């Protein structure tokens, strides 16, 4: 339920001496910090009653769109239903209360789940080994490129310091390569959406460490010549990295390992439906082929007979090391485990089938309605792009205006202006969990917005009109930086 009523800051509700006292520990025992180490005065935290806090954060939640409240077709984000069972079971007391260093004797239950998750992920990606420890997609990418680097170094192949990235790639790919101390070489994409093979051949050299590919790509199409690309990269001595952002499109239908990829990261918060939580936690589990097995980040769950234990640096001495304080986002991993067990093998294949069905249906309906798909002659994967360059030219109404007006129609906007190659684009990913009626409603909304733009462009350009706020002044936000409330000092 979206409300337009503004909600004050929690600090503005504060009154000295008030508090949610049921939550305080008893006043005794009470320890003391030696004088030289003490804080002067109290930290500037709010003082509110329990009801005030509950009401405030409930109201704030009502200023949000979520999957539970709205169709959320954000491209490359896979905003599918997050089953409630996943949350409920991950929060069982035995899992939730367990200290990560409590020892494997008291952790056989959680480790059994994590071991099964590792095995299932291996099988659905066609990889030889999996580590669950990366805490987000970007950290999974980091782990992947760090493993590629470690592989070349271990072979004494020290000159390989270039990562090839197609221009359609997500910004994390080049940012990750830089974080790993690699240079980035960008290659162009052909008009049909596939990688420019000639440009790839020209880029390959004895300096090539590897290539990062998303397949299906962020253009919403499957790279048809992937087997040839893999052969060329391998012949040049490089390795192939699979960005799992779009794994939902092919789950159980074709496996990255079979395509020739050496390493993959999976976004469990996309494909395996763990919650996005307003921007995290994610989970970026990585899978590798035989060549990269020794370099997997630790820890990894191992099984010895009927017992499970954590394998660490002593078991994998060539590991790229640790990326998190303990063993990754365990609670997220448990949610993914529940999801995968409920889907089973057949259910996973259906994810790809029905997300692809929904995307192609939506693309067909929008094309019939006169919108322009960016890759009309291609099959959509689980997502597709429409370009509004004609609407922008003829009506003066941009992709951003359409996106904002969609909010008024009760739909979260698709991804806008990404990938950068397609002008005035909307990247639309409906996911498999939406009904045909919901997709039809979305088409009707876009048609209505275009009709409105033809007669009353100003209304569209000023959208949204029904949200808690109108369009925000981003320039002012950056120039007159206000990123923390400060107490008023008398």
């Amino acid at each position, binding site marked *: 339920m979206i409300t337009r009523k503004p909600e004050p*800051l929690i600090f503005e509700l504060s009154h000295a001496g008030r508090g949610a006292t049921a939550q305080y*520990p008893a006043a005794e025992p009470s320890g003391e910090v030696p004088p030289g180490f*003490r804080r002067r005065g109290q930290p500037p935290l709010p003082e509110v009653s329990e009801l005030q806090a509950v009401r405030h954060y409930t109201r704030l939640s009502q200023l*949000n769109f979520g999957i539970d409240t709205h169709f959320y077709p954000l491209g490359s984000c896979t905003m599918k239903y997050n089953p409630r069972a996943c*949350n409920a079971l991950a929060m069982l007391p035995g899992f939730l209360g367990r200290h990560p260093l409590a020892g494997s004797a008291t952790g056989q239950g959680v480790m059994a789940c994590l071991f099964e998750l590792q095995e299932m992920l291996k099988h659905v990606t066609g990889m030889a080994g999996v580590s669950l420890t990366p805490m987000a997609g970007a950290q999974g990418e980091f782990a992947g490129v760090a493993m590629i680097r470690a592989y070349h170094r271990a072979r004494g192949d020290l000159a390989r310091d270039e990562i090839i990235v197609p221009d359609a790639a997500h910004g994390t790919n*080049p940012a990750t390569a830089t974080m790993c101390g690699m240079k980035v070489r960008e290659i162009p994409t052909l008009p049909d959406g596939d990688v420019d093979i000639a440009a790839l051949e020209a880029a390959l050299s004895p300096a090539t460490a590897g290539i990062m590919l998303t397949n299906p790509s962020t253009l919403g199409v499957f790279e048809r010549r992937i087997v040839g690309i893999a052969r060329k990269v391998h012949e040049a001595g490089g390795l192939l990295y699979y960005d799992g952002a779009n794994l939902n499109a092919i789950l159980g239908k074709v496996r990255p390992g079979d395509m020739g990829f050496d390493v993959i990261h999976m976004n469990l918060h996309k494909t395996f439906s763990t919650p996005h939580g*307003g921007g995290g936690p994610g989970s970026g589990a990585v899978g590798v082929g035989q060549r990269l097995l020794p370099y997997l980040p630790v820890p990894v769950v191992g099984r010895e007979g009927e017992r499970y234990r954590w394998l660490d640096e002593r078991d994998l001495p060539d590991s790229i090391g640790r990326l998190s304080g303990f063993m990754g986002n365990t609670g997220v991993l448990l949610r993914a485990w529940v999801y995968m067990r409920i889907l089973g093998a057949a259910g996973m294949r*259906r994810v790809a089938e029905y997300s692809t069905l929904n995307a192609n249906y939506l693309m067909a309906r929008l094309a019939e309605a006169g919108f322009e798909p960016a890759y009309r002659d291609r099959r959509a994967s689980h997502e597709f792009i429409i370009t509004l360059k004609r609407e922008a030219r003829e009506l003066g109404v941009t992709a951003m205006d359409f996106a904002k007006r969609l909010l008024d129609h009760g739909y979260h906007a698709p991804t806008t202006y990404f990938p950068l190659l397609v002008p005035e684009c909307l990247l639309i990913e409906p996911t498999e969990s939406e009904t045909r009626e919901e997709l039809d409603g979305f088409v009707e909304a876009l048609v209505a917005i275009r009709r409105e733009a033809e007669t009353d462009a100003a209304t569209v350009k000023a959208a949204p009109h029904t949200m808690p706020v109108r369009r925000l002044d981003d320039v002012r936000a950056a120039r007159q930086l206000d990123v*923390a409330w400060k107490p008023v000092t008398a």
Partner: protein
Amino acid sequence: MPYIPHTPDDVRAMLERIGVPSIDGLFDEIPAALRVESLPGVPEALTEMEVSRLAAKRAAADGSPLNFIGAGAYEHHIPAPVWALVTRGEIYSAYTPYQAEASQGTLQIMYEYQSMIAGLAAMDVSNASLYDGASALAEACLMAVRAHRRSKSARILLPETINPVWRRVARAITEGQGLRLETLACDPASGCIDPARLAALSGEDITALVIPQPNFFGRLEDADALTRWARANGALVIAAVNPVSLAVMKPPGEWGDGGADIACGDAQPFGVPLSSGGPYVGFMACRMEHVRQLPGRIAGRTVDAEGKPGFTLTLQAREQHIRRAKATSNICTNQGLLMSAATIHLALLGPTGLDRVARACIARTGELVAALTQLPGVRVAFPGPRFHEAVLKLDRPVAPVLEALAADGIIGGFDLARDYPELGDALLVCATETRTRADIEAYARALGRVLGRAAAA
């Protein structure tokens, strides 16, 4: 079909609209040789009821032992409203706030969180969270190198007294960018950074000094003196702090003369369950002069087209989706759900509640140390001021003692043998406000039994 709503009629109508005879026809651009027809190795589906039963059995097997470990993850009371609120669909199932007008809830929570963290640390600005404390330290090291333009060495001093896993994570994450993380030795008598070792480095080009407070052994470092040394030697200061301690302890922004440059740590103690290791929530705050080097999401307050206050992501020119290969970090999102939990947790506790939590932790750890060191063969390794952890020395190897305690339903602490073999048979213990006097007595009795001796009268 779990979570897929299509009826056979839907499928027929949709395929007709697309103009393909079957769903398989939608995959005709994928080379046939690559396609798989089944997934051997993946089990068949279970119903929610069946999975619930399996999960409940496994969770029950992990039990609910009495926990005396900290070592980077801390058991605190979590007010019931915290998770009731963050699992509301509008928070739980929203994504990162790209459409600000439809994400004002998430953005305002980010702003409130940033305000609370900056206030606790007495720093100017906080980001909207990072993955966890260990990776936040790694990002802080990278940030210090970017922020300190005059220093050419990329040398960061990482004391032995910081969490050893955090040290390993910092190494793994920064290695590719050529940072030189140098270990700074611990004084074996005090369990704190050895000032003599630091003095020996005076005058050298050092980019940053990391100061853990409290340190991994629970001891309080002389943060003022260490900060002064760093200032005098032109090094930045990275504070790695336990956020609960900030209720009662001098915040990084006030250390030494002028304070730390960057403060980081793990906000897990604020409303985030232990959950077998994660997800937790890293925090990072800094002085305003470094804000453009701060990694991660930042929410800012601005106005909308009607002049009404509102919130939006800001300073995005630092980030990967704009800067690509030149971004401050490859990080895309924050730890939104856990950040929200931390914010609500802090709103409920307020300054008084958090002060009580911190003081109860200090008191209970004092009681725990007193009770256990009554036993012959158990003594304190490092006397001196501490927060809520302490290192105990035993007269025999720790591992079998912990195993025997676990059989009694007590998780007795963290064995330091692997990370600090030079300390001998050393055990790191922790008691937060959640441990009662009876819990502590139960631990002392059990340890007494295990050690085979009665407590001294």
